[in-house]
Every structure is written in structure tokens, then in C-alpha cells.
């Protein structure tokens, strides 16, 4: 075996390492639940503020700057306004589902955070199937979206919801395959173990293709531009939540940005090393990484036009799915070839493979002809 040992086999850690946080005390659950709910709400407010402010800066505007210092209380004011607004129920709406939809949309977002570590062991539940939990629970939001689109009794909403279902079902596959690469490298499904496995090298260095696929697929799953077809302000006029108002609309808004927090956290945890980092306290490192991912998401939103629905599907099935599969296979082979630890020269090899695969994929990638004869 040549080269230094750069990844750590996670299995090594299962027994001895003492967590930084007393995870087994009875009050741990209570405290952490409160922390998580507060964390998510605060993060969502910060994210909305950043989104509005940064996208304004990108678009040569100033953004909200009147309410409070630097306009930071604008979202709180907006939330208060939404709380006081009348909730309108459309005549054609299926009221029960119409009311349930925002809750179904928002609740899973909080639940996902149960498995995200803020520090070694500092997480609500160190599930040994953490990633599976994230994917399974994260997808429930989609049902909320579809319930909203269906029950609104509005054609625009229905179209938006249909697009959402199609997009999420398609993008789940490349995203899961990209995550599988990480799992194979770390040798564990627990997010905490995956972070520990990135002690020396974050997985973005080892798995550039996986990162790219997760980022793009993640953007599509949480309907961020350029894949925001379900909302599409210029086409569907907000898509599935066209008919919502007041607090129910605010729930969707929270859910949407909550999903963004989840996706940023997931990317930061799985690929950027989570709470690992020198000097600063671990939770701060995690926050910094979350905000970096968020900034890139805002940046793409500010720049790129929207893709069409068939192009969205084509991208998932014809471009990302084969690439994710190849990525997984290559990762598996590498892990099998060097079962103890990966040598340093794997990094340039992986980057080269990424470039070649992306170029080849783009070369072979053909979009369907857009026009349908009717």
C-alpha cells in the first residue's frame, strides 16, 4: 500500500470514540427537539433574508433594507402580516386536504434534522440508517405539494403539482445513487459516521462527480432555479400554492426554505465535511458550510433560466442517472481495490474521471425534439 491513509474506515469508530455530547441522557431528546425546531425556524428566516438580499444584489438591486438593521426584520414583519391575513378557501377546494397540505409539506422538513450532527454525537438520533431516513422523510414533502395542487381546484396548481411529482420521482434516483457513493466510501449510513470519515479529506475532493450530481439533483428536488418548474412565476404563477394565502401560504414558504436548509445541510454534511474543520467550533463550521452551499444556490438562481419539463426529465434520466451509476461503480471498485484506505493519487484520478464523464455525457446527451404533432 503506497501513499498515506486519507480516509478513515468508519467501522473503526463504532466502538471507542467518545461523543462530545451526552447522547443517552433522558433530557437529550427534549433539549434537542427544542434546539432543532428553533434552529430550523431561525435558519429559515436567515435563509429567506439572505435569499432576498443576495438575489437583489445579484440583480443590481438593494433588497429589503428598511425594517430593522439592514432590513433583517423584514421577514418577521412579513410573517406577522401573513399570520394576520385572512385565509381564503377557494370554492372548488377540497377543504380537508387543502388544510392538511401545508402541514404535510412542512413537518418532514423538521423531522429530517433529527439525524444531522452538529458536532460529534450532537444529534437527536444517531440512526444507523441516517441517509435512508433523510431520503424517506424528505420525500414526504412532495405529497404535501401534490395534495395542495390537487385540492386547490386550480389548473395552474394542478400542473405545478404534476411537474413536482415527475421531477421528484426522477431526481430521487440520481440523488440516491450519488449518496450511495458517499456511503460506500464512509462504510456507514449514519450521518455522524460519514462526517467522522471525512476527518482528513472532505468527500467533495474524493467524489467531485457525486457532489455535482447531488447539487444538481438536490436543486431539482427542492425546486430551486433552474429547475423551479413547479413554481415558475412567469408561467404557472406560483404553481401549487397559487390558491394559498395567509398562514397556510407561510407554511409552504417555510417548507420550501426549510427544504433548502435541509439540502444545504445535507450537502455540507456529506461532501464538505460537516462539522469538521480547524480552529472554529464544530457547529460554526457546519453553519459556514451551509451558508456557502446556500450562496451557490442563490447564485445559480440569479443567473440561469428555467429548463423545460421534458428537458428536466431528460437531464435526470439520460445524463445524471448513467453518470451516477458509473460514479457508484467506480467508487465501489476503488474501495474494493484499496480496502484499508484510499491512496492520495485517487484524487486526481477521480477528478479526471469526472471531467471525462461530464464531457462524454454532454456529448452523448440529446434532448427530445420539443414539438409534439397534434
Amino acid at each position, binding site marked *: 500500500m503506497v501513499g498515506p491513509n486519507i480516509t478513515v474506515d468508519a467501522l473503526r469508530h463504532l466502538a471507542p470514540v467518545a461523543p462530545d455530547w451526552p447522547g443517552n441522557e433522558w433530557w437529550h431528546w427534549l433539549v434537542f427537539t427544542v434546539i432543532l425546531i428553533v434552529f430550523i425556524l431561525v435558519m429559515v428566516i436567515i435563509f429567506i433574508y439572505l435569499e432576498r438580499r*443576495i438575489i437583489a*444584489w*445579484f*440583480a*443590481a*438591486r*438593494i433588497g429589503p*433594507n428598511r425594517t430593522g438593521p439592514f432590513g433583517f426584520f423584514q421577514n418577521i414583519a412579513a410573517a406577522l402580516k401573513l399570520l394576520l391575513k385572512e385565509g381564503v378557501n377557494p370554492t372548488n377546494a377540497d377543504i380537508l386536504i387543502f388544510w392538511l397540505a401545508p402541514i404535510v409539506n412542512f413537518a418532514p422538513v423538521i423531522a429530517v434534522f433529527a439525524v444531522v450532527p452538529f458536532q460529534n454525537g450532537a444529534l437527536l438520533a444517531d440512526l444507523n440508517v441516517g441517509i435512508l431516513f433523510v431520503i424517506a422523510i424528505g420525500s414526504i414533502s412532495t405529497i404535501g405539494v401534490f395534495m395542495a395542487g390537487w385540492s386547490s381546484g386550480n389548473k395552474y396548481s394542478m400542473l405545478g403539482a404534476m411537474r413536482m411529482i415527475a421531477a421528484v420521482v426522477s431526481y430521487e434516483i440520481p440523488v440516491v445513487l450519488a449518496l450511495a457513493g458517499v456511503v460506500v466510501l464512509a462504510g456507514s449510513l449514519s450521518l455522524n459516521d460519514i462526517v467522522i470519515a471525512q476527518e482528513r479529506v472532505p468527500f467533495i475532493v474524493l467524489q467531485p462527480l457525486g457532489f455535482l450530481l447531488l447539487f444538481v439533483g438536490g436543486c431539482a428536488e427542492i425546486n430551486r432555479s433552474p429547475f423551479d418548474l413547479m413554481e415558475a412565476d412567469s408561467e404557472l404563477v406560483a404553481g401549487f400554492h397559487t390558491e394559498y394565502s395567509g398562514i397556510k401560504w407561510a407554511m409552504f414558504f417555510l417548507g420550501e426554505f426549510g427544504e433548502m436548509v435541509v439540502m444545504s445541510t445535507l450537502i455540507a454534511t456529506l461532501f464538505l465535511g460537516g462539522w469538521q474543520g480547524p480552529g472554529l467550533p464544530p457547529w460554526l463550521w457546519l453553519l459556514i458550510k451551509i451558508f456557502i452551499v446556500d450562496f451557490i444556490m442563490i*447564485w*445559480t438562481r*440569479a*443567473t*440561469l433560466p428555467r429548463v423545460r419539463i421534458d428537458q428536466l426529465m431528460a437531464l435526470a434520466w439520460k445524463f445524471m442517472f448513467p453518470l451516477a451509476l458509473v460514479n457508484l461503480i467506480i467508487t465501489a471498485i476503488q474501495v474494493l481495490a484499496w480496502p484499508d484506505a484510499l491512496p492520495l493519487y485517487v484524487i486526481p484520478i477521480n477528478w479526471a474521471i469526472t471531467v471525462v464523464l*461530464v*464531457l462524454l455525457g*454532454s*456529448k452523448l*446527451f*440529446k*434532448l427530445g*425534439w*420539443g414539438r409534439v404533432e397534434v
Partner: protein
Amino acid sequence: MKFERYGIGIAKGMTVTMRNLLRRRITTQYPEQKLTVSRRTRGNELVWNKEKCTGCATCAKTCPQGVIHIVTSVGEENNYNVEVFEVDTGYCISCGLCVEACPYDALFMAYAFELAKYRRSELVLSRDDMLIENKQASAYFRPEVDKDLPEQELLINRKE
């Protein structure tokens, strides 16, 4: 059809937005900061020089909207006295044709832009509302007013 050039176009676009993120913003925060408007501003009000006006009512005839209401009586020296001179600025389209038509240079557009009122009735200007003594006239079609007014603030002259 395929994705051409492997994302180079996307990368180029990202650099442009990043460059604009760092650029100085041109927005003027209105109630606190105000730009100096053009000298020829056609404010939605008229300014009237009582001395010069002869009551010929050319302005009323020219007005495409017919918002100028003018009533005159014959005075002692065989001149017209302007009895009523009313402009309903609610219907005025600020075209400035009345100012151009005035043969005696007695009518001016107003150099003002904050003219919102609470009631429609307040939009009807009577002759006393329009006197040139109380209001700043704009240089629209009246180049002689030019020197009284500050120079317009142009965006192109601002620092980036």
C-alpha cells in the same frame, strides 16, 4: 439538440452576475434621496403668469383633453380679464401642448413631481393655485427659465 459547449456558457453567465454583485448599485432610495430632475420636467401642474396672460384661451383650444376651463370678461381698456382659469390635473396628460401654444409665454409646466393629493377635487387647480409667484416653473419650452434650475443628475455621470 443537445447541451452545447459543456457548461461554459453557464460559467460565463455566473461570472457576469458575480461582477454585478460587486458593482455599485444605482438604486435611489426615494424619500430620503432624491435625484434632481430634468430642467424641462413636465410636472402635472401648470404655472401661470397673470401679467402676461391676455385671456386668449389658445391653451384651452389646444388641450387635447379639454381640461383647461377659462372664462374671460371684457375689461376697461378693451382687454380680457381672466375671471376663471381652472385646470383639472386629474385628466391632464402632461403633454405640454398648452405651454407650446401660448402665444404670450404666460403658461409654464410646473417643476414639481410630488403632486399626489388625497381627493380628486383637490386636483382641480384654480387660478390662484397656479400663480408663478408661488411656484417654480419648468424650463419646458421656456428656455429662459433654464438658468434658475439646477442641472439634472444623470445616471451616466455617476461612478460605477
